C-alpha cells in the first residue's frame, strides 16, 4: 500500500485520548453488580475503535492489548460475566495502560512491555475464570448467574412490549463491500438479549462458494425495549446491500417470549427471564443485587425524555391534519360569503382557526423531521475506509448537517448518497500521484452539503477529482449501442448517459463501485421520493451531483390561480411576484414565443391555458396577470386569468392515483370539493421549452 498513514496518526491519537476519557468516565459510572448496558456499550465501543485504529496503523501492541480488553468487555456486554469491583479495577487499569501505550507510541518511545503483558495476562485470566468466583478478586463479587441486564431481566420491569423480529437478508456482495453481519449481530447482541436463527438454505456446496459472497440470512429477535432506531443504526452501513425488515407484532402476549423457541445462541442470551431460570442454570447464585436491579430497571424505563411512537401513528396524524386543512379551507371559503351581524366574528374565528391549523401542522411535521446528520454521520468512516482501500487521500467535508428532512425522505436518501460518495471516491478522485501530476494537491476533497433551496432540500455531493470523462463515457455508450455511431451529443447529454442502467466506466471493477448498480439506481430512488439528481462536471476540476428533494411530501403553501374555469395551485415558494402587464412590456420573438421585460431581464412567458389546453377568459396579456415564478434557477412568467387566494393545500399524489404529468407535481382538493392541479414550476419550464423547441 502506498498510502501514507502517518498523516492520520495525529487524528487517531487525539480521538483515542478523547475516547479513553469517555471510557474512564463511563467506567466510573458503572455500577458493580447491575451495570447499565449502555455504559458497557460505550466502553466496548472505545476499545473496539482503538483496536481498529491501532491495527490499521500497525500499532500491533496496542491492537493486541485492546483485543484482550475487547474480549473481556464482550463477555461483560453479553452478560456472561459479572461486573465486579475487580473487573472494574482491571478495566480502569487498562485505561491507564492504554493511555501510556498511546503516549509512548505517539512520542515514538518504547512501550512498557512488562506492564502491558502483565495486565493483558490478568485480563485473560479474568476471561478464563469468568465462570468461577475469581479467587483473586476478593469478596465483592457477584457470580455470573445472578447478573442480568436491567430492563431485560428483573421482575420489577413493567410489562414488556412485544419483541422485535428482524429479518436480515444480505445481498451476495455485502461482504465484499466491507460489511460483516457478524459485527452487526454483535452490535445487536449488545442492545439486548438477541435470538438468532440462521438460514443457511442458500449456502451452496463448498466448491461452489464464492468466498467473497454472503449466502446466509438471519431471523433475529430482540427485546421490545430496544428502540427501532438503535436496531436500524446497526444495519445502517449495510443499507442497500441487504433486505431488512424490522417489525413487531402489534400486541403479543407476554407469555410469548417464554413459550417461544429456545434460543439457538446461548452465547448471545445473557439473561434468563426469571430468577428461577437463573437459579436452575448456574449452581451457586448468590443474589445480592435484587433491589439494585429493580432500581436500575426503573431508572432505565423512567428517565427518558422521549416516547417512541410508531411511524404509522404519525402518518395517521399527518393524514388527519391534511383532511383538517381541507375542511378549514372549505370553511374559510364559506365564511367569506357570509353577511350579517355575526359575519365579522365568524371571520375572526376562521382566521384563528387557520393560524392554529398552521401551527398544528407545523408541529406534526416537525415530529417527522430529522437532521440530515443522521445520514451524513456514516460517511466519515466510509470515506476513510474506502480511501484506504483504494490508496487515495481524501478529505471529507460535511456542511449543512443540521438541515432537517422528513424522516421518510431521510431514510431513503442514505442509499443514493452512499452510491454517490462511493462513485466520487472510486471514479472521481484520482490517485495522489495523478493529482500531483495534474497540479492539484495530493489530497482530494469530497464535499457533502445540504441546504434549503426554494421549497426543496438540496443535497450535494461534489469532488475535486477528474470530473466525468465525456469521451470515455461516449465511447462506452457507443460500444454498448446506447448511442448511434454518428450521433453528436452535448456535454450535458453525455453526462446524462451515466444514469442509464448498467453503465459504468470504471476500467476495472473494484469492490467499491462498478458493479453495474449505480447511477440508475440512484436516480430511480431519488425519483421515487419526488426528487431529482443532476450532475455537473468539469473535466479535470471535479463533478457535482445535486439531489433535490421535496421538504415534505404532504402539504404545500400555494397561490391558487384561475385559468378559464380551472384552478391551479402555484407553490408559493416558487413565486417571485405577480403583476399586471402592459402590452408594451412584452416582446414577441420569432415564432411563437413571447418574452417579458422584468427588472432588466427578459423572461419567457408561459401561457398556462395553451400548455394545459384550457379555454381562457382572455388571451390578451394585459387583461390577465403574470405570475413570475422561479424554478431551477430560471425565471418565467406564467400567464393566468386571475389570482384567487393563498392557502395551504394537501398534496395528493398524481402518480399514485393517475400518472405523471410533466409540469404538475400533484393535485389537491379545494374547499369547494373540486380538484386543482399543483404546478411544478421547474417541470413547467421544461415542458414549455420542449414545446417551444418542437
Amino acid at each position, binding site marked *: 500500500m502506498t498510502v501514507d498513514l502517518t498523516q492520520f496518526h495525529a487524528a487517531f491519537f487525539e480521538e483515542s485520548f478523547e475516547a479513553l476519557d469517555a471510557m474512564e468516565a463511563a467506567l466510573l459510572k458503572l455500577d458493580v453488580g447491575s451495570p447499565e448496558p449502555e455504559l458497557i456499550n460505550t466502553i466496548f465501543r472505545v476499545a473496539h475503535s482503538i483496536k481498529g485504529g491501532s491495527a490499521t496503523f500497525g500499532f500491533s501492541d496496542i491492537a*493486541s*492489548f485492546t*483485543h*484482550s480488553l475487547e*474480549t473481556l468487555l*464482550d463477555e461483560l456486554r453479553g452478560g*456472561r460475566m459479572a461486573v465486579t469491583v475487580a473487573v472494574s479495577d482491571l478495566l480502569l487499569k487498562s485505561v491507564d495502560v492504554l493511555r501510556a501505550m498511546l503516549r509512548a507510541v505517539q512520542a515514538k518511545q518504547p512501550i512498557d512491555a*512488562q506492564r502491558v*503483558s*502483565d495486565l*493483558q*495476562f490478568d*485480563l*485473560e*485470566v479474568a*476471561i*478464563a*475464570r469468568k465462570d468461577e468466583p475469581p479467587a483473586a478478586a476478593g469478596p465483592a463479587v457477584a457470580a455470573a448467574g445472578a447478573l442480568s441486564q436491567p430492563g431485560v431481566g428483573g421482575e420489577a420491569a413493567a410489562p414488556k412490549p412485544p419483541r422485535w423480529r428482524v429479518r436480515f437478508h444480505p445481498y451476495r456482495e455485502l*461482504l*465484499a463491500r466491507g460489511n*460483516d*453481519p*457478524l*459485527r452487526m*449481530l*454483535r452490535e445487536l*447482541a449488545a442492545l439486548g438479549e*438477541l435470538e*438468532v*436463527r*440462521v438460514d*443457511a438454505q442458500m*449456502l*451452496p*456446496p*463448498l*466448491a461452489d*462458494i464464492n*468466498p*467473497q459472497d*454472503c*449466502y*446466509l440470512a*438471519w431471523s433475529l429477535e430482540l427485546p421490545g425495549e430496544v428502540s427501532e432506531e438503535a436496531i436500524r443504526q446497526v444495519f445502517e452501513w449495510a443499507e442497500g446491500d441487504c433486505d431488512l425488515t424490522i417489525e413487531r407484532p402489534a400486541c403479543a402476549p407476554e407469555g410469548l417470549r417464554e413459550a417461544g423457541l429456545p434460543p*439457538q*445462541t*446461548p*452465547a*448471545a442470551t445473557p439473561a434468563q427471564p426469571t430468577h428461577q431460570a437463573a437459579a436452575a442454570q448456574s449452581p451457586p447464585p448468590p443474589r445480592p443485587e435484587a433491589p439494585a436491579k429493580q432500581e436500575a430497571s426503573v431508572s432505565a424505563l423512567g428517565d427518558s425524555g422521549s416516547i417512541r411512537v410508531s411511524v404509522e401513528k404519525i402518518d395517521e396524524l399527518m393524514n388527519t391534519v391534511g383532511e383538517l386543512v381541507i375542511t378549514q379551507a372549505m370553511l374559510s371559503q364559506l365564511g367569506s360569503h357570509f353577511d350579517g351581524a355575526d359575519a365579522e366574528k365568524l371571520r375572526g374565528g376562521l382566521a384563528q382557526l387557520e393560524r392554529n391549523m398552521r401551527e398544528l401542522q407545523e408541529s406534526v411535521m416537525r415530529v417527522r423531521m430529522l437532521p440530515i446528520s443522521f445520514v451524513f454521520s456514516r460517511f466519515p468512516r466510509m470515506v476513510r475506509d474506502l480511501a484506504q482501500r483504494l490508496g487515495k487521500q481524501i478529505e471529507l467535508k460535511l456542511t449543512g448537517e443540521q438541515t432537517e428532512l422528513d424522516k421518510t425522505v431521510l431514510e431513503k436518501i442514505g442509499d443514493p448518497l452512499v452510491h454517490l460518495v462511493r462513485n466520487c471516491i472510486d471514479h472521481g478522485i484520482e490517485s495522489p500521484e495523478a493529482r500531483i501530476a495534474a497540479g492539484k494537491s495530493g489530497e482530494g476533497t469530497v464535499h457533502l452539503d445540504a441546504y434549503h433551496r426554494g421549497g426543496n432540500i438540496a443535497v450535494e455531493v461534489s469532488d475535486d477529482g477528474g470530473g466525468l470523462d465525456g469521451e470515455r463515457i461516449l465511447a462506452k455508450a457507443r460500444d454498448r449501442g446506447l448511442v448511434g455511431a454518428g450521433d453528436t451529443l452535448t456535454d450535458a447529454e453525455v453526462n446524462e448517459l451515466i444514469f442509464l442502467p448498467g453503465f459504468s466506466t470504471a476500467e476495472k471493477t473494484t469492490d467499491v463501485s462498478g458493479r453495474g448498480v449505480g447511477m440508475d439506481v440512484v436516480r430511480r430512488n431519488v425519483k421515487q421520493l419526488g426528487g431529482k439528481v443532476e450532475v455537473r462536471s468539469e473535466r479535470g476540476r471535479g463533478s457535482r451531483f445535486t439531489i433535490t428533494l421535496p421538504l415534505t411530501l404532504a402539504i404545500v403553501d400555494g397561490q391558487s390561480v384561475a385559468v378559464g374555469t380551472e384552478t391551479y395551485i402555484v407553490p408559493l415558494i416558487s413565486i417571485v411576484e405577480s403583476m399586471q402587464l402592459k402590452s408594451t412590456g412584452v416582446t414577441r420573438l420569432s415564432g411563437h414565443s413571447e418574452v417579458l421585460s422584468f427588472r432588466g431581464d427578459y423572461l419567457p412567458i408561459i401561457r398556462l391555458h395553451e400548455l394545459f389546453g384550457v379555454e381562457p377568459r382572455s388571451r390578451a396579456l394585459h387583461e390577465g396577470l403574470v405570475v413570475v415564478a422561479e424554478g431551477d434557477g430560471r425565471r418565467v412568467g406564467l400567464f393566468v386569468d386571475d389570482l384567487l387566494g393563498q392557502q395551504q393545500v394537501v398534496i395528493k399524489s398524481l402518480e399514485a392515483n393517475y400518472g405523471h404529468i410533466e409540469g404538475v407535481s400533484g393535485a389537491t382538493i379545494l374547499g369547494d370539493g373540486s380538484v386543482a392541479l399543483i404546478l411544478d414550476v421547474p417541470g413547467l419550464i421544461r415542458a414549455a421549452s420542449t414545446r417551444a423547441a418542437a
Partner: protein
Amino acid sequence: MTTRKKQPPVSKGGRPVKRRSAARKRTRDDGSLILACDCTVAEAATLKTQLARRLGESDAVTVDVSALQRIDTAGLQLLAAFVRDRRTAGRAITWRGRAAALEAAAGLLGLHDMLELPREAGR
C-alpha cells in the same frame, strides 16, 4: 508474572506470533487441518482452497482452531459449508483446540449447531 505467562489459561488474545508458528509446526505432521490466525474475508479464498482440499478425505479430518484469532462471516460461512458437506457425505470432522473468536462468532451468527462445535465449548 512473566513465568505465569508461559502457560496462559486461555488460548487466545495477544499471544506472540512466534508461538503460533511453533504450534503450527508441531501439529502439521499429524495431518490435522490447521486454521490460520485470520480467517476473514481477506483470507477467504485461501481458506476455501484449504478446506476444499480436505473435503473429500475419507478419514475424519481434525480441524485445529487453536491458532485462530479472528474470524468473520466469510470465514464462518466456509467452515459451515465444509462441515455440512462433510456431514452429508457421511464423513466426520473433529475440532481441536479452542478459539474464543470462533465460538463467539458462531454463537452470534447462529451457526454453532451447524458447525457441530463441542457443546461445552459453546458455553
